[in-house]
């Protein structure tokens, strides 16, 4: 080493952060014929992957599913009836560009909002359901998402049905400000009344379930499940690392990490999901009355 080297700044070490899925890094299956698995890099036919419930045949990586795909993978044929299909967002804060963004996502996803609610049967057992869709505004929760989920819970309450909630969300929707925050309280209040009436709540967390959604209805199930590898947490990895100035473990905030830390009842492979949900609905039939 030469003397002058002591006076030069060392090259800043490039910090590596876990990527938070952004607009470009969407792991949506594109409209192409083939697709590359982001985990094992194997190239496979899109149709084949879709047939396998979007679980990589090579490495079992669970690709994101949109709400329609989720519903058709779980519910008995032609049994699903949608609630509140026409409900759309307003722009309560007059947030610049919000309406355009919403319109763009409506075009892209052919859906009005980031959640689909309704009811149908799984292995013959009737249940209400709310399925979030990360392809619409990152599944963020604004007034519409909060209201639709709350109404689905209320309907379940009136009809004496269970509710299953599939979460996939970046958190609260920034463009609706504090109104988004309050949707956490609204949905949680609805679940409390439903639960006190003996209602069955099943939460299935899928990739990603973060922020305000993880800190409200996603965590309030009688059973909390997750799909393998799903990112689940409250604060983002980068924010935590910058706050505590420590590098976080590799598996931090994965479904498996949460299972180890007592937050989940089980991590369930997508192929086993229908059977497990059917089994739980079965066990909860007739309210567990003992008849001998």
């Amino acid at each position, binding site marked *: 080493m030469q003397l002058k080297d002591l006076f030069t700044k060392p090259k800043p070490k490039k910090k590596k952060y876990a990527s938070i899925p952004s607009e470009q890094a969407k792991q949506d299956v594109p409209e192409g014929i083939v697709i590359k698995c982001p985990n094992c890099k194997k190239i496979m036919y899109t149709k084949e992957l879709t047939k396998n419930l979007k679980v990589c045949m090579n490495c079992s990586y669970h690709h994101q599913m949109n709400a329609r795909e989720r519903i058709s993978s779980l519910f008995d044929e032609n049994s699903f009836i949608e609630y509140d299909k026409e409900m759309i967002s307003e722009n309560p804060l007059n947030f610049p560009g919000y309406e355009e963004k919403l319109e763009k996502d409506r075009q892209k996803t052919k859906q009005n909002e980031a959640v689909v609610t309704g009811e149908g049967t799984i292995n013959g057992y009737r249940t209400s359901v709310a399925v979030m869709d990360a392809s619409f505004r990152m599944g963020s929760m604004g007034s519409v998402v909060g209201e639709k989920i709350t109404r689905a819970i209320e309907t379940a309450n009136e009809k004496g049905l269970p509710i299953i909630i599939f979460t996939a969300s970046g958190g609260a929707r920034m463009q609706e400000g504090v109104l988004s925050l309050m949707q956490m309280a609204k949905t949680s209040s609805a679940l409390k009344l439903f639960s006190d009436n003996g209602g069955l709540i099943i939460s299935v967390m899928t990739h990603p379930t973060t922020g305000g959604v993880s800190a409200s209805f996603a965590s309030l199930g009688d059973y909390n499940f997750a799909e393998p590898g799903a990112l689940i947490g409250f604060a983002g990895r980068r924010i935590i690392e910058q706050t505590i100035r420590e590098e976080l473990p590799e598996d931090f905030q994965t479904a498996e990490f949460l*299972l*180890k*830390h*007592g937050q989940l009842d089980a991590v369930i492979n997508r192929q086993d999901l229908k059977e497990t949900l059917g089994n739980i609905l079965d*066990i909860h039939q007739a*309210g567990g009355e*003992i008849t*001998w």
Partner: protein
Amino acid sequence: MVAELEFEKPVMELREKIKELKEFTAQSDVDLSSEIEKLEARLEKLENEIYSNIKPWDRVQIARHANRPTTLDYIEHIFTNFIECHGDRYYGDDDAIVSGIAKFRGVPVTVIGHQRGKDTKENIRRNFGMPHPEGYRKALRLMKQADKFNRPIICFIDTKGAYPGKAAEERGQSEAIAKNLFEMAGLSVPVICIVIGEGGSGGALALGVGNYIHMLENSTYSVISPEGAAALLWKDASLAKKAAETMKITAPDLKELGVVDEIIPEVKGGAHKDVGLQAKHIEEVLANSLKLLSTMSSKELIQHRYEKYKRIGQVSFANDLLGVK
């Protein structure tokens, strides 16, 4: 090969002899069938003699037998549709306790139990069936859930005790156990507890406040392990055998003390000789208990449980002894 216990050695030896003779008969022309018959008759007599007169210390050995069936063994044989539920939703998931929902003869139930490992690796993962606070909190979470959905709760007790460790104290071992006793007293559904192996102290009791407590014939239930008692009382852990006899820890003892409701008979030589058959014995008792409790209302169930514990304990009054009224 099932490891043999000291007290049953004569049986094992005789059985071995008979086997030898049988092999000899099969291989050579000499016919020993009459001798074999005689020996078999003697074996039966010997078995009856030994197994109907098992000493407390021998029961401790059976209860601790490495092959003794565990909670998961019985779940597999007695229940259907079992789904294991993990985690206390606060801190962690304790593998020393397993819990979940299932069906018993078609009826939805919640099943919870201590879980020992079958080998060293599993034993390390399950901490030899000695729970931490998160284990008790997981159990309580599942009990509350059962209460909400009106499902009977069945607890299998099989632990040396709550884990005496630093982390366990930091996370509130005492609070976790106490909270379970407190909350179990208020459950509005039938609760049936079955001691299947060792019932060690508070760690066992935290799953043990039920409408009925049943015990397998060769299981034990005590305030402390015989070794611990010997160390405390006589400052010598090697006096465990004496402690086992003094402390009244076997099923017949506990029945006499009014702690245990029913003794579930064990397969000759211990539950590990035939899990399937043992499970049938348990299933029968369980069905009977559930039938009895199913006629009670929530209020009656709570009262029934309260009275069960209220009765336990023996006191007298000094003025009675003195003849003062």
